[in-house]
């Protein structure tokens, strides 16, 4: 028995077997809907408005839905003809497409290689699990001609690397599907990057910085082993391929260079970032952190480098949080409570608040702690200030009439910040230094750019005792990729660094639990 699923706004109709899950119908039409938890019915983020004959609301689904006709695409089954409308808030992710980096000269070695072509260009990519950034570079001058960014289309198949790897394991051709999804997107981005006088044929080289899983998927290599102990990668070394071999459309003989990674969880994006920002040459004691679903931490103790990755979970990206959102328009990104207990906040794009993104969550948590609404152990303080008390209903603190943080949300933030802080402490222990001795913390990643340094200190994401400076470098990974396209010494430096960094695997350490538990408190 067949049923018709229509998408009036998109003007698309599709016929499917009755009993089909709505998400499958959406994918069949090649429409995009993110399913951060890979359809495990855990995150409730695949809400759509749907009318018609549908399966009854299960207990599991009921936990996520409040409004009529709003259903979870991953659970609801089509029983007859239905009409689907997408909700507005799943569009327009803001990615930061700039970063701080050192200057590198164009080296002649590269130019000489291509001396017979006129317009000599390259493209540098940073492929993040969530967002992609790209630069078009004039290889002769080293000038950045254009920049572009986009959402990683693989997000539809899972929000984090683990759920994407699960997708590869559970679906025949899963790796191929994700691989072509990313290469198609990169081709689109290249098209967007082109400027007057530059066509695809002028692009001779592409450099790619990304985490280890994203590199595997681009190279069409099954990343399964990355997500199973002992967490090994299929490849870590720099890879050089013909662009056409991974379906990237540039100059016929054009090359793609996948930058080297250190381990399954310390990828080329981190190497690229610490080279681009010259973190590797700091002659003090400093820490580089890339905050995301995985928090990658590199410590530099007078030239000795060590790195760890810690499973922070998606809370700091606004996921797994009741009113959490990624950094989209309308997300609360800054928040403050002043001494008179007045609340102020801003939203991305200045639009009406529709939820809270990662930086907003950090600000909110920090402000609630400072105002005495939250206790050190993460519990809401029932003796909070009278002026704020009215906002506290049923273990939820309301920021607007319908946006709140719950006790459970605060626990998720504790887990995320506890993991990163414990990671920092244990990494420093490996190097026999204490947090008090650290001069500087460098925060990288698109996420970091919105973040308020005081907030992350107050909530203890940076362990207590730190007295140095915090700086933000933005997307340093794409910067490093750009430098490596114009300068071979930069590329060689990355290869050298890959061998030099000591990896400290936290999850197998016996005392991780003790440190983690200690760092859960604010």
């Amino acid at each position, binding site marked *: 028995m067949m049923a018709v699923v229509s998408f009036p706004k998109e003007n698309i109709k599709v016929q499917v077997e009755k009993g089909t899950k709505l998400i499958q119908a959406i994918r069949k039409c090649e429409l995009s809907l993110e399913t951060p*938890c*890979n359809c*495990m*019915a*855990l995150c409730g983020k695949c809400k759509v408005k749907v009318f018609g004959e549908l399966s009854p609301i299960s*207990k*599991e689904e009921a936990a996520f839905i409040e409004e009529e006709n709003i259903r979870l695409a991953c*659970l609801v089954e089509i029983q007859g003809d239905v009409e689907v409308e997408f909700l507005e808030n799943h569009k327009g992710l803001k990615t930061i497409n700039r970063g701080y980096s050192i200057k590198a000269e164009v080296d002649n070695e590269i130019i000489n290689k291509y001396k017979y072509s006129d317009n000599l260009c390259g493209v540098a990519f940073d492929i993040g699990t969530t967002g992609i950034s790209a630069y078009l570079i004039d290889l002769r001058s080293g000038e950045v001609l254009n920049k572009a960014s986009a959402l990683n289309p693989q997000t539809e198949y899972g929000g984090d690397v*683990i*759920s994407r*790897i*699960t997708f590869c*394991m559970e679906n025949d051709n899963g790796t191929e599907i994700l691989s072509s999804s990313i290469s198609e997107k990169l081709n689109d981005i290249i098209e967007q990057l082109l400027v007057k006088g530059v066509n695809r044929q002028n692009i001779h080289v592409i450099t790619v910085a990304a985490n280890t899983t994203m590199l595997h998927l681009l190279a069409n290599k099954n990343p*399964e082993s990355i*997500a*199973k*102990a002992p967490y090994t990668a299929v490849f870590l070394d720099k890879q050089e391929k013909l662009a056409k071999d991974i379906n990237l459309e540039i100059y016929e003989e054009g090359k793609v260079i996948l930058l080297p990674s250190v381990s399954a969880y310390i990828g080329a994006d981190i190497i690229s970032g610490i080279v681009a920002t010259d973190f590797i040459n700091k002659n003090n004691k400093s820490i580089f952190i890339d905050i995301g679903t995985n928090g990658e931490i590199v410590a530099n103790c007078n030239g000795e480098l060590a790195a760890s990755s810690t*499973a922070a*979970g998606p809370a700091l990206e606004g996921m797994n949080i009741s009113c959490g959102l990624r950094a989209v328009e309308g997300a609360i990104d800054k928040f403050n409570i002043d001494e008179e207990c007045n609340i102020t906040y801003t939203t991305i794009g200045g639009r009406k608040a529709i939820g809270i993104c990662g930086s907003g969550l950090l600000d909110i948590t920090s402000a609630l702690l400072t105002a005495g609404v939250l206790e050190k*152990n*993460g*519990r809401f303080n029932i003796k909070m200030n009278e002026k704020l008390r009215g906002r506290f209903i049923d*273990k939820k603190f309301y920021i607007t009439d319908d946006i709140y943080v719950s*006790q*459970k949300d605060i*626990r998720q933030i*504790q887990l995320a910040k506890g993991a990163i802080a414990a990671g920092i402490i244990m990494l420093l222990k490996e190097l026999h230094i204490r947090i008090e001795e650290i001069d500087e913390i460098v925060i990288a990643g698109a996420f970091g750019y919105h973040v308020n340094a005081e907030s992350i200190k107050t909530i203890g994401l940076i362990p207590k005792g730190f007295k140095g400076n915090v700086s933000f470098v933005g997307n340093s990974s794409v910067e490093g990729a750009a430098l490596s396209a114009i300068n071979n010494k930069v590329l060689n430096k990355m290869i050298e660094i890959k061998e030099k960094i000591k990896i400290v695997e936290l*999850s*197998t350490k016996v005392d991780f*639990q003790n440190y*983690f*538990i*200690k760092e*859960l*408190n604010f």
Partner: protein
Amino acid sequence: MDNIKEPLINDLSEAVVEMDEERTEELANQCIDKGVDVLTAINEGLAKGMEQAGKLYDEGEYYIPELLMCSDAMYKGIDILKPHLPKDSETKFKAVIGVVQGDTHDIGKNLVKIMMETAGFEMYDLGRDVPAVEFVSKAKEVGACIIALSTLMSTTMCGMEDVIKILEEEKLRDKIKVMIGGGPISQKFADKIGADAYTTDATKAAKVAVEIAKGLSEGK
């Protein structure tokens, strides 16, 4: 129970809830000096305190650090009282617990183990990254009625299904029940692989485990 002893038992509970290791030790020693029944001191004192801590955790009053500190206090008390237990004390329900193969994240598993121990189970902890077959062989060896499986990663969830398959092959499915939990696990997944129970956290897991074990023993 006479008048001096009852407050002692209540104090033990309170010391556990208040995460006070030293006081718990002190009170446990007093129990022995004053001849309080050791089993009562453990069950009505220490375990009850831990149960109370679990309740506070459920209500959002306590979080993982508090729960672990309470359990530290409880174990300090148990270490003192246990050697004085009469040899023929009642046989406990037994359960095997561990993190499935391919995963090394074990904090969730450790919490479940504590709460199940509190609920009266004798726990056999196989640790982390444990092959499916080892869960079954251990359960057979010790006569466990429950296998409790945990994982934090969706990539290793299939190890849970493997355990159930082995139990089926060995025709043990009606004797040994399987409980699962962890970040990526849902009721939907539990239904799919045919697990007997899924719970969202440690205190609920302990409650469900007791029901399952009782059901099994009454069924016999």
